[in-house]
């Protein structure tokens, strides 16, 4: 499978700006810039897109693994919080913390925690990232 995206940048790094587009059109000349990334200006940035990819991947993997164990989630709500810090002067993505809350008929808390932990360890984006990945998983009624 191949997936594509593109970035276009005009002008200098700090004062210029870029746009992003993806194959699906979900991003379509979507603006990003230095100030949207490191400051508070409106616009997307690479790190929130990595967080979205990870939240999306983990949650679909969790759904699959629950199905595999005979359960179907009424709802899975996940959040990915990515941390980027300066390490030896270089901005470095150091970790992603996943939080997930599941409404899953018939499962107990221990089984849900076990399956969520397996999804965290094995989803394709988790395996791709050189960063510490942590998880807080719980059932809600």
């Amino acid at each position: 499978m191949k997936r594509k995206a593109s970035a276009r940048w005009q002008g200098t790094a700090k004062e210029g700006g870029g746009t992003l587009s993806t194959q699906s059109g979900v991003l379509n000349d979507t603006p990003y810039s230095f100030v949207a990334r490191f400051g508070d200006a409106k616009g997307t940035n690479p790190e929130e897109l990595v967080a979205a990819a990870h939240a999306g991947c983990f949650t679909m993997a969790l759904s699959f693994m629950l199905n595999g164990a005979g359960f179907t989630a009424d709802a899975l709500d996940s959040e990915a919080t990515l941390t980027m810090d300066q390490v030896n002067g270089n901005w470095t993505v150091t970790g992603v913390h996943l939080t997930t809350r599941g409404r899953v008929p018939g499962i107990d808390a221990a089984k849900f925690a076990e399956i969520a932990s397996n999804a965290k360890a094995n989803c394709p984006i988790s395996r791709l990232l050189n960063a510490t990945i942590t998880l807080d998983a719980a059932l809600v009624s």
Partner: protein
Amino acid sequence: MLRNADARWKGTALDGSGVLSVESGTLKDTPYSFKTRFGDVQGTNPEELLAAAHAACFTMALSFALVNRGCQPATIDTKAKLRMEQLSTHWTITSIHLETKARVPGLDAGAFARIAEETKANCPVSRVLNATVTVAAELLP
């Protein structure tokens, strides 16, 4: 720096669906599903978001690297092509190929290729990926 994204999923993995949102609002309850990821249904998926993050990160980093060399990049266009394949039954992101084309007055092609290569190795998203990253750099007249 912390960056957040959310995924919500309902139903089974194959027939259910999810929505993705990011802090900036660039994705806001944006639908994704098994079929937008592994099939041909229109919609986003984790892999194209990851490719967009990488194209964005590399392109901004390249702009910085060029400015640091005293250049004024006019435009930089980058495509990121992500490949995911099944390795011993696990879907695995194996590579991202970056294709960048830039107009940079006063720079020669050899220097541009070296700067693109260094940027590929050092941008934060490249450094967080356990995958083969390659770059093809072309200086436009």
